[in-house]
């Protein structure tokens, strides 16, 4: 998994955002799946989440589905993840 700083995160153009703040397992993964289906290969999905389970879960989801995490950063309790559709 690639982790970049907030400064580097700006180099990615976000094509769509899925806001999972306040939502808990398994909803963030299900919504991520739903939204990634709508994108085309190479596009970037931004996921915002505050469920602590998301960090480990999204990395394993990424490993299983082949959609790459290109950025993962934390701001206070909010995790911002950028996923590139395979």
């Amino acid at each position, binding site marked *: 998994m690639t982790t970049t700083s907030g400064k580097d995160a700006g180099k990615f153009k976000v094509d769509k955002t899925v806001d999972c703040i306040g939502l*808990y*397992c*398994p909803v963030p*993964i299900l919504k991520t799946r739903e939204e990634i289906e709508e994108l085309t290969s190479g596009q970037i999905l931004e996921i915002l989440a505050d*469920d*602590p*389970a*998301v960090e*480990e*879960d*999204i990395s*394993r*989801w990424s*490993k*299983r589905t082949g959609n790459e995490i290109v950025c993962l950063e934390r701001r206070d309790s909010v995790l911002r993840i950028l996923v590139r559709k395979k």
Partner: protein
Amino acid sequence: MVTNKKILYVQTSGIDRPERLYAPFILATTAAAMDIDTTIYFLIKGVESVKKGEAEKIKIGDFPSLKEVMDQAHKSGVKMFVCDQSTQLLGLSRGDFVEYAKVVGAATLNDLLLEADAVITF
């Protein structure tokens, strides 16, 4: 020598079943000593025993307290994952688990099951 084997222990029993709480820690600690990659995943009522302060209260017969056995497992390299969402099922407050139990979710358990060479549930 066989290497890179993985065992997953799944703990679903709660603090009302103390006789089912010791075995995964003892087995996992032993597995770690056998160079096996070892994980315990706590869900449903299993999350009760990894809430801070609970394992200290549990002791059976001549065995050490559950907390001592849990700490020993951690020191041996056993990984511990906890399903925080189970707290909502049980009407407990979120979080506040022992410091070495990492909060994870359903995707992680599914992945661990597929990765494991053996799974045993308590």
